[in-house]
């Protein structure tokens, strides 16, 4: 199968790059199948490319297993991509390069999904934040204390809260602490991996507002990973829709939310009660999977309501349209 995205790479090769760019990122994992006793390679993400501009929010939408968290792990630098390049401020980030790592960890910060797991239970909040500062900055203890207090106030907590342990906070407050930890170094990019999904409904809106507030004040870019369509529509500037490790559609929020083209994107809308009124004609995915779909065919061919013979054999290229939105579907090629 030849489905390279060279086109996309070449286009941006000449000009100045965006703040954060990912080009053709692949990540394979070695998996052992217990049924057969063989080991094989699982391609968790395939040829993912995107660009994130300063002060913008790029939302990555997908179901579980779509590889969106894997993508985050490659970008942040927890894992080394099997293939592909990540550019930050016009510089290619080397995974092993110490200087690059330090720079990356300072400027790209992460907010995890579950605030109950991302804070060390044995450390006071102040200690957690102080560690971040003492590792990454040259501030003296007094300046660090000031910075910690101002950051805590900024995320809607009290300066006194630095004496507390994580278990003394509710989920929403913990997520505020996690946000404080992410912004305390004044980063340029924040990767938020499902930051709302572990929170209660009435708390979700608080955190969403806080994220927007901070972005407007500090001019950060967000890579916002979510499965929640109305949250994405609310916060995103650009949207990347992923299915089984591939980008099936991407574009600005109005392109994706007003005129979604890919059948998978459409079926996402059809499955979400709120959007069914907006898009009454969209089809849900097939209940019954199509059998005998060839390996390497379109990733959505099994469940696609419009699946044709060609879809089950060939893989559609991710084609960039005139309005710079991208879709990978044969239906849309002509």
């Amino acid at each position, binding site marked *: 199968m030849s489905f390279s995205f060279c086109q996309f790479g070449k286009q941006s090769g000449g000009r100045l790059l965006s703040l954060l760019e990912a080009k053709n990122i692949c990540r394979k994992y070695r998996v052992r199948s217990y049924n057969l006793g063989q080991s094989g390679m699982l391609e968790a993400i395939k040829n993912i490319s995107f660009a994130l501009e300063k002060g913008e*929010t790029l939302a990555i939408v997908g*179901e*579980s297993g779509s590889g969106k968290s894997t993508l985050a792990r490659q970008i942040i630098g927890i894992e080394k991509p099997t293939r592909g390049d990540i550019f930050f401020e016009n510089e290619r980030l080397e995974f092993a390069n110490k200087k690059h790592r330090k720079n990356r960890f300072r400027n790209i910060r992460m907010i995890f999904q579950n605030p109950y797991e991302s804070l060390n239970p044995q450390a006071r909040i102040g200690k957690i934040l102080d560690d971040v500062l003492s590792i990454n900055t040259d501030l003296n203890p007094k300046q660090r204390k000031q910075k910690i207090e101002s950051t805590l106030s900024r995320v809607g907590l009290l300066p006194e809260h630095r004496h507390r342990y994580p278990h003394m906070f*509710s989920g*929403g*407050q913990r997520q505020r602490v996690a946000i404080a930890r992410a912004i305390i170094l004044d980063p340029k990019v924040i990767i938020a991996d499902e930051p709302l999904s572990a929170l*209660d*409904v*009435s*708390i*979700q*809106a*608080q955190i*969403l*507002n806080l994220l*927007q*507030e901070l972005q*407007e004040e500090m001019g950060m870019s967000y890579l916002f990973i979510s*499965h929640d*369509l*109305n*949250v994405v*529509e*609310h*916060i*995103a*500037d650009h949207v990347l829709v992923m299915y089984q490790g591939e980008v099936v559609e991407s574009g600005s*929020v*109005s392109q994706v*939310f007003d005129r979604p083209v890919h059948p998978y994107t459409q*079926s*996402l809308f*059809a*499955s*979400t*009660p*709120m*959007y*069914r*009124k*907006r898009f009454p004609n969209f089809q*849900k*995915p097939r*209940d*019954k999977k199509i059998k005998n779909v060839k390996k390497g065919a379109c990733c959505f061919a099994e469940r696609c309501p419009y699946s044709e013979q060609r879809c089950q054999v060939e893989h559609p290229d991710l084609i960039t349209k005139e309005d710079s939105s991208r879709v990978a579907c044969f239906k849309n090629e002509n």
Partner: protein
Amino acid sequence: MHLLRVENLSVSYLTESGEVPIVDRMSIKMGMGEILGVVGESGSGKSMMALAIMGLLSPKMRMRADYINLDGEDLMKMSVEDRAAYVASKAAIIFQEPQASLNPCFSIASQLDETIAFHGGGGRADRKTKALELLDDVGINRPDLVLKMYPHQLSGGMNQRVAIAMALACEPRLLIADEPTTALDVTIQSQIIELLVKLSRAQQSGLMLITHDFALLSENTDRIGVVYSGQLMEHAATENILSSPHHPYTKALLDSIPQLGDRHVKGSRLFALDGNIPAIDQLPVGCRLGPRCPKAERQCVNTPELRSIENYGKVRCHLASVSSVNKAEADS
């Protein structure tokens, strides 16, 4: 004729330092074949209420109720054994994690068979036919294949379907679904909800859909109960709640979901309730929403009671009737 009438159901948790109330005087009514949505946040007691109705509370819990009338019989007047048998024949429950109701050591066939046999399923061949029928009913394509499988070989959505099939084996008059789709993907979620609603309509059985997701309830339910901090805050028909919620909490919940077409605009914010959900052992005085409520007034330090409001439903708020009058004035 009501399928389920619960009056003043309280559940509390026994600790060394006394009882901690988790559910406080909850009263709920469900008609025959009605779909009731119960919405609330984690720890609000919505699941405890369901478990109490089913008689599945852990021994550390205590429940009290004036009556729990299920299909014409009062559960509170029965002995423990009678009650368990009666509830098993009339009601069934499915949980968020389908794994919770499926045993990983046995095949789907043997688990379904056991349930069917327990409810008087007849001979071996009859039971097998019944099992195949049930799996077919819940939209499983190859029931014969699935019967031979074990829970770990099936996906989460399929497992949830099997769990529903098992719940249906006793032909329940009341099916309680406690967050049935929270653990599932978006596209699978809507399939499962549709299935539950379809089955409920087809068999004229009641469905109690417990969830934290308001959007899920808006399309499918006849009536909605809103639970906060162990109390029923509002209980009314779905269209009433969606069009003119009387309780500030319901209104806040609805407003805090981003609306359709609500795009990123600089400075625009969602409506959000301040503060945190109070811990169950540190409840505020008076109205439990009080400290977070945007409309709180002086009288809110008095505990509000659930009151009926004409042409609407029941609301637990001092300001409910006032605000509805104001709304009527504003409309006219």
